[in-house]
């Protein structure tokens, strides 16, 4: 499944929809986390205040990101950390590989980090001859299977314990078992060996505090603590947007993130790391390197709407709440960041042309906005990106035939990151819709015609696949009713009823 790309979203999604095991697992996970999140949020009387405050803090950070980054760097370096800046994925990979080579590293242990998935760091390290082991249980499972994470919080949510047992039997030579405790303890023992031999630990960062130069990492398993305590070198990678101004701001975000992600009051462990150890005999790594990654993030600052996406704290709540994600899971998005937030971040990171289907992977129901702990208006962002895609398509089409012969044409197409799917029919339909809806006479006439035309296809008050009977619209409109029911046009419209003398005759005093 790891070969899925953003460009083939439509077919990825279709494949996921017929995978009943996947859909069962997704249903369990998303509803469980949804319920837990709700219960945890209700446990705090000031949840809404916290969300507002968190967003205000993030807005402040993003509007002064340059200043806060410099403050963070200066404080972290004063306390012994070394900070590196990477404009893009290849620079970041180069920095990490160079550091590893200088230290003579052979064995790398990693804790879960989205940003290292984003830049494909494991491939780069392996190409440099190093062995890299993911130590988060879920990540370890999918690394063994050669797959990609399908959920931000539960990366192997798409696999059953039976499949995991088979995998462990094949790769680790254990006796077949479907006991989760046994499988977990097998992984613990295998990974303990890896920890004992590791000479480099790589982690992500949840929050970085400008005021103190502190990085904070949350987890439940303990592998982050092992990764950041045992090897002699620790490299932490973070997007430039992870900054918080003050140490006390952690209070707000530590209340929001675990509750939104897993419904916990706090995850089991928080590691707050401020520089390197002070005495050689102290525990912990000798060196701490922090890699700050841009990779398209600074571009998102250019508009208040797109900038919102940088407030994301990667809790995964919007995935669990999303009716689209609930049905298709993370792989179909073909990107490291799935779900609603993935649909708005991915096109901005890799280019709209390469992920032009993702902003459409939403019903715009707003559930994501409702649950987001930092109040990102994801539907607004989706519409913003859709508008941008439409604008670019028009530009492309206008450039049209004459562009093909021009040398500049190819460059333009590359800048857009590929070509956009033509939606001429769709645009015609929307123009027609707009024309009808803005002219009352035309509208009433269309309603009458529609009512006549629909007679042959309405079954039990619906248009669609009703009780096995085919009651579909003809193509191309049939594409809609193929998988959905549609309400037919009413026998008489509200306007007609009003003209016929309908009045509000309900008595507000007696609504029983």
């Amino acid at each position, binding site marked *: 499944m790891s070969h899925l790309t953003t460009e083939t979203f439509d077919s990825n999604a279709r494949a996921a929809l017929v995978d009943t095991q996947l859909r069962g697992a997704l249903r369990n996970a998303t509803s469980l986390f949804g319920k837990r999140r709700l219960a945890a949020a209700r446990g705090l009387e000031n949840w809404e205040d916290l969300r507002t405050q968190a967003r205000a803090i993030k807005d402040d950070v993003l509007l002064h990101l340059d200043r806060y980054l410099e403050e963070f760097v200066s404080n972290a370096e004063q306390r012994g950390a070394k900070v590196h800046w990477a404009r893009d994925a290849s620079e970041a990979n180069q920095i990490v590989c160079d550091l590893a080579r200088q230290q003579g590293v052979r064995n790398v242990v990693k804790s879960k980090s989205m940003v290292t998935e984003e830049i494909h760091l494991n491939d780069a390290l392996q190409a440099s001859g190093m062995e890299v082991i993911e130590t988060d249980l879920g990540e370890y499972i999918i690394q063994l299977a050669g797959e990609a994470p399908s959920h931000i919080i539960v990366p192997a949510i798409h696999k059953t314990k039976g499949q995991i047992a088979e995998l462990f039997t094949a790769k680790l030579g254990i006796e077949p078992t479907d006991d989760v405790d046994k499988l977990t303890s097998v992984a613990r023992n295998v990974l303990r060996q890896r920890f004992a031999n590791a000479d480099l630990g790589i982690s992500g960062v949840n929050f970085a505090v400008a005021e103190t130069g502190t990085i904070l990492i949350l987890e439940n398993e303990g592998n982050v603590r092992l990764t950041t305590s045992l090897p002699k070198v620790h490299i932490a990678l973070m997007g430039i947007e992870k900054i918080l101004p003050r*140490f006390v701001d952690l209070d707000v975000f530590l209340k929001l993130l675990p509750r939104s992600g897993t419904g916990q009051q706090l995850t089991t462990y928080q590691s707050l790391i401020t520089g390197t150890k002070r005495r050689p005999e102290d525990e912990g790594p000798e060196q701490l390197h922090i890699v700050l990654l841009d990779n398209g993030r600074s571009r998102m600052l250019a508009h208040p709407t797109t900038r919102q996406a940088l407030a994301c704290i990667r809790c995964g709540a919007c995935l669990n709440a999303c009716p689209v994600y609930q049905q298709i899971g993370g792989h179909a998005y073909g990107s490291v960041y799935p779900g609603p937030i993935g649909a708005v971040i991915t096109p901005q990171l890799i280019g709209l042309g390469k992920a032009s289907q993702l902003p459409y992977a939403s019903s715009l129901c707003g559930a994501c906005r409702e649950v987001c702990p930092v109040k990102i208006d994801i539907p607004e962002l989706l519409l913003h990106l859709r508008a941008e895609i439409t604008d670019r398509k028009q530009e492309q089409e206008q450039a049209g035939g004459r562009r093909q012969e021009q040398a500049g044409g190819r460059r333009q197409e590359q800048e857009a990151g590929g070509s956009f799917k033509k939606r001429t029919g769709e645009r015609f339909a929307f123009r027609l819709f707009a024309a009808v809806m803005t002219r009352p006479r035309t509208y009433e006439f269309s309603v009458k015609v529609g009512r006549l035309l629909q007679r042959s296809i309405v079954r039990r008050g619906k248009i669609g696949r009703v009780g096995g009977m085919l009651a579909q619209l003809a193509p191309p409109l049939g594409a809609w009713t193929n998988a959905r029911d549609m309400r037919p046009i009413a026998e008489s419209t509200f306007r007609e009823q009003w003209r016929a003398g309908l009045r509000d005759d309900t008595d507000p005093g007696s609504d029983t």
Partner: protein
Amino acid sequence: MAARESILRSIREHLVASAPHDVVHAEKGDEQSELTLDIGHPNGDRLSASVGVQNDGARSLIEVFGANLEAVGGHCIVARSEAEVIEALNGIIASLQDSPLRGRTIALSNAPLLERLMARVETRVDEIAVSPSAAELFDYDVGISTAQAAIAETGTLMIDSEAERHRLVSLVPPAHIAIVDAANIRLTLGETLATASQGPELSPTITFITGPSRTADIELTLAIGVHGPQELYVVVNEGPPLTNS
């Protein structure tokens, strides 16, 4: 340096590009894009309300701490004197010895208190080592340390790397026993963060621990003790403070 300058330049240029849009949003009264931000103080009264098991006045901080710790699978034992702390250690080690976790070999952090207490623990053990090396630590059954603070509303311990060598003792062995003075329990996370950042310098590593290590990565089934301890015992000392001595 080239990357640093170019990223900072890109940030500034894009923020400048955004300014006209920001003004439009602000005029429309879009609260999410307001340019003047009144952030307030995260630890303001309104925001430090307690969570989880509430401290309703009738319950002490210790009770709230204990209830929240038990809720995440940890064990809380309250002791009213040094003698009771030793009795608690005795009981915990004996019960570990009756379990698959063995409890025969004990690794202590370098807090002098622990050696003193263990000398008076009657349960027989095979070995007690003070601050063994990282490599050796993998073979120990139990790790014992103190904790520098605790958070009642979440059942959380705070360990501070400047206070003692307990980063690995609290993590690597399958059972962890921590001793915390009742006087060091705070109600909220916010208060504890404020305490942690009081000194002139933050310690290089501060770790918050809430219950035993856990995962639900396989079919969302809870499994305890995946990388860290499977059992976490906290002995709260209500008597005269022990851990600051």
